[in-house]
C-alpha cells in the first residue's frame, strides 16, 4: 500500500541515449510495476497508416531477435506477471506488475520487446487477430460511438483518427510500413520508462542503461495543428444498434493546462454516477439506462465528453433535457456545495489511486510524459482541494457546451 507519503521517494534520470527513467519507490509495497510509455498513437499516423500504432502494440509481444512469440508469453507467465498494453490516440503503453524478486527479469523482457523482430509470418497471423478485434467492437455500438463522434468533432485534426483503423486499412498494411513507423516513433527520446512500488532504483537504472546501450538517440516530431471545434449535431443509424447512443463532445483543457483540475470537478458534478446534474435530470427520472460525463486531457488539447444510452423512444426528450441542463450550467454556473461534494469524491479517488503499484503506474507515467514533472498524489489531492467555485465558473464563461458537438447513433 503506497500512501504512507513519507516513505515514497521519487527518482529520475535520463540516459545518454535520451531515454527518461522515473520511479516512485515505495519500500513497503509488496509488488512492483513498470511500464514503457511511448508517446505515439493514432494521432501520429498518416491516413495510410490508420491503426498501425495499435497493430504494432500487438506485434511487440510477438518477439524479438532473441525470443519468439511463445517464448515471450512463457517468460511473462514464469514470473507470474500481470501485464498488458494499450494504445490510445496519443500513447502506447506497455506495463506489468510482478513480485519484487522478478523485477529485474520483467525489466529485461519489456526492454527487449521495445525492439521487436516484426517477422512476416507473425505479422500475417496477428493481422487476423486485429481484424477479429475490429469485428468484436463492430458488434458493440457503444464502443463505436466515440470513434465516430471524435472523427466528426475533430474533423481534419489528427486527434479524430481511429485507434483501431478499419478492415480496409489493416488489410492493406504491410510489414515494411510497420518497420518504418516503429523506426520513426520508438526513439528513446520519445519514451519514458516508469516504475512504481518496491523498486531497486540503482540496480534498475544500471540494468536499463546496459540493456539499451545500442539504442540511438534521435528526435521525434508530433504535429500540433490548431483545432477549432465546430458545433453541430449529427444523427446516424447503425444497423447493429437496437438502443440509441448519444455522445456530446465539447472543448476542454490540455494535459499541460492547470485548469484540468477544475475541469475534472466540473465533469464530476455534471455527470458522476449516483449524484450529479445529469444523474438527476436523466437517470433518476428513468429516461436513460445510463448517463455520464468526463474530461479527457490530451497532449495540448482536451475535451469534455458526455455519454447517454437510452431507449429509442426517449431520444428526443433526452436530447432536450441534456441541452437544457447544459444551458442552465452555462447560464447560472455552479454552486459552492456541489463543487465541495465533487471535490470530496475526487479526493477519495486519489487516495485509492495509489493503492497498488499497478494503479499508481499509469498516472505517474502519463503525467510525467505530458509535463516532464513528477506530481505526487498528495500534490494532486492538494490541487483538487484548492479548486474554488470561481475557478469552475471561469471555465464556463467560454460556453464550452454551446460549442459542443452532439452525435447520435440510432437503430436503423
Amino acid at each position, binding site marked *: 500500500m503506497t500512501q504512507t507519503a513519507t516513505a515514497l521517494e521519487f527518482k529520475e534520470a535520463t540516459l545518454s541515449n535520451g531515454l527518461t527513467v522515473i520511479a516512485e519507490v515505495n519500500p513497503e509495497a509488496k509488488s512492483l510495476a513498470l511500464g514503457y510509455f511511448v508517446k505515439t498513437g493514432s494521432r501520429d499516423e498518416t491516413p495510410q497508416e490508420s491503426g498501425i500504432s495499435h497493430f504494432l502494440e500487438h506485434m511487440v509481444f510477438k518477439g524479438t531477435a532473441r525470443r519468439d*512469440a*511463445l517464448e515471450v508469453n512463457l517468460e511473462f507467465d514464469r*514470473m507470474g506477471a500481470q501485464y498488458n498494453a494499450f494504445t490510445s490516440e496519443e500513447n502506447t503503453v506497455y506495463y506489468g506488475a510482478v513480485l519484487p524478486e522478478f523485477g529485474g527479469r520483467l525489466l529485461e523482457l519489456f526492454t527487449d520487446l521495445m525492439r521487436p523482430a516484426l517477422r512476416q509470418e507473425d505479422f500475417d*497471423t496477428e493481422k487476423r487477430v486485429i481484424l477479429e*478485434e475490429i469485428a468484436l467492437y463492430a458488434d458493440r455500438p457503444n464502443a463505436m460511438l466515440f470513434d465516430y463522434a471524435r472523427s466528426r468533432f475533430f474533423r481534419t485534426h489528427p486527434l479524430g483518427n481511429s485507434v483501431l483503423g478499419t478492415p480496409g486499412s489493416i488489410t492493406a498494411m504491410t510489414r515494411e510500413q510497420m518497420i518504418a513507423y516503429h523506426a520513426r516513433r520508438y526513439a528513446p527520446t520519445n519514451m519514458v520508462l516508469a516504475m512504481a512500488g518496491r523498486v531497486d532504483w540503482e540496480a534498475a537504472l544500471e540494468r536499463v542503461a546496459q540493456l539499451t546501450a545500442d539504442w540511438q538517440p534521435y528526435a521525434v516530431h508530433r504535429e500540433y495543428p490548431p483545432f477549432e471545434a465546430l458545433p453541430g449535431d449529427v444523427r446516424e443509424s447503425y444497423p447493429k444498434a*437496437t438502443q440509441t447512443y448519444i455522445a456530446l463532445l465539447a472543448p476542454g483543457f490540455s494535459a499541460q493546462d492547470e485548469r484540468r483540475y477544475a475541469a475534472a470537478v466540473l465533469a464530476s458534478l455534471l455527470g458522476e454516477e449516483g449524484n450529479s446534474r445529469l444523474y438527476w435530470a436523466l437517470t433518476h427520472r428513468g429516461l436513460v439506462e445510463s448517463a455520464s460525463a468526463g474530461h479527457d486531457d490530451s497532449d495540448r488539447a482536451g475535451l469534455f465528453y458526455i455519454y447517454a*444510452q437510452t431507449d429509442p423512444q426517449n431520444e428526443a426528450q433526452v436530447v432536450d433535457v441534456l441541452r437544457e441542463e447544459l444551458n442552465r450550467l452555462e447560464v447560472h454556473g455552479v454552486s459552492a456545495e456541489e463543487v465541495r461534494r465533487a471535490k470530496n469524491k475526487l479526493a*477519495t479517488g486519489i487516495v485509492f489511486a495509489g493503492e*497498488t503499484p499497478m494503479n499508481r503506474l499509469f498516472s505517474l507515467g502519463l503525467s510525467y510524459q505530458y509535463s516532464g514533472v513528477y506530481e505526487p498524489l498528495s500534490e494532486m489531492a492538494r490541487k483538487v482541494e484548492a479548486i474554488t467555485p470561481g475557478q469552475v465558473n471561469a471555465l464556463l464563461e467560454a460556453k464550452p457546451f454551446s460549442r459542443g458537438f452532439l452525435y447520435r447513433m440510432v437503430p436503423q
Partner: protein
Amino acid sequence: MAFAQVETLANGLTLAVEEQPWNPGIALQLLVPVGATTDPQELEGAANLLEGWLWKGAGDLDARALAEAFDELGVRRGSGVGLEYTTFAASFLPEHLGSVLELYALILQKPRFEEALLEPVRQVALQELAALEDQPPRKMGAALRRAVFASTHGRYAGGSKEGLISATAEALRRDFENRYGAKGSILAVAGGVSFAEVRAAVERYLGAWGGKTPAAPEPVLTVPRTLCLEQDTAQVQIGLIYPDVGPAHPEFYSARLAAEVLSGGMGSRLFTEVREKRGLVYSVSASPQGVKGFSYLLAYAGTTPERASVTLEVLRAEIERMQQGVSMEELERAKIGLRTALVMQEESARSRVSSMARDLFMLGRIRPLSEIEAEIAAVDLERINRFLAEHPYQNPWVGMLGPNLTKHQAQSA
C-alpha cells in the same frame, strides 16, 4: 501478513475485518443474500428493482439528500445485483466510518420506497435488459446459463421483462420484508481501522437490524446440449460450460491450477493454440465460476462466422485434452501466476473485501492467504494429473450466437 477476524453478531450479521494499519483508506462490502435465484416466481427482477429503489430515499432523507450525504463524506460507492446476492461497496477515509455505516443502516432499515419513484427504477431496468441485444457476448452468456440450469440459477440477474413490468410497489415492499435481513448478510471491511472500532460502530448502527433470510435454492441442472441463437453480428460468440469441482472439494486447488494452465496467462494453452498460433480470435478464455452448490468452467471465444466451426473445434479439443495431464513447467507457471495474483489482491482493499465477502458466502469462512499458498504449494504433478484423469472436462453445454449458425454447423458436421 494481514488476516481477517470474523464474528457473527447477535442479529446474525457476519462481520469480517482485515486490519491494514498502513492503509490510509477503508473499503467496505456488504453482501445481502438477495439475488435473482430467490426472486419470487412471479417477480423475476425483484432483487434488481429493490436495489435501485433503495437508493431513492431513506428515513428523513429523500433520494437527493441521501446521495448528497454520501458525497459530503467523500464516499465512492457502488451497488449491484447478482444471481445469489446484492452487494453494496464503498471506499472512504477512516474518520467517516461511523457516518457511513449510519447511512447504510438507514437505507436497510428505513427505506422510503415511494411509489412514484419505482417507475423510473423500472424504466432503467427495462432499458438494461433491452440493451443486452447490443452486447452479444453477454446475451450469449445469459442464454447459455439459462440452458444449463433447470433451477432459478439460470435466470438473468437483471430479471425478466414480464417480471419487471408486473412488479407492483406493494409486492416489492413485501418481498423486501421477506428477504432483506441481517441474518445471512456479510459485512467485510479492510483498511486502516481496528476490528474493535469497526465492531463497535457496526453494533451501534446495524445491531438492531433484524429481518428474515430466504433459504437458498439448490441448483438443478439440465442435460447438456448445444444452443444456437441467430443474430446478424460481425462475430460469432461461443460459450462452453463444463462441470467442475467447487471450493469445498479437496482437489479445488488442483482444478484452479488446471484452469490457470488452460487460460491463466498469455502462455496458457488456449491463448497459445487459439489466438497465437492460428489467429482465430481476439478474445479467448476459460475461467472457474460457480453458484453455491455447483461449480463450472466457463470457456469463451469470439470469432468471425467463417472461422466459428474451427474455433469451437480447437477450443473443445484443448479443454478436453487436459485429461491427459499437464507438464511440470506448466504447473510451475500456474503456481506462480496464482500466488502473484493473491499477493496483489491483498494490496487492494477493494478487491480484498470483495473476496472476503464471497469466501464467507460460498464457504462460510475466509481462507487465509497463507492457507491458500500452502494448498497451492501442496499440489504436485502427480496429484494434478491424477485429478485431471479422474475429473475430465467433458460433455459441455455449448452456446453460440451469430449469423447462419445452422449452415456453418451443418458444414462442419
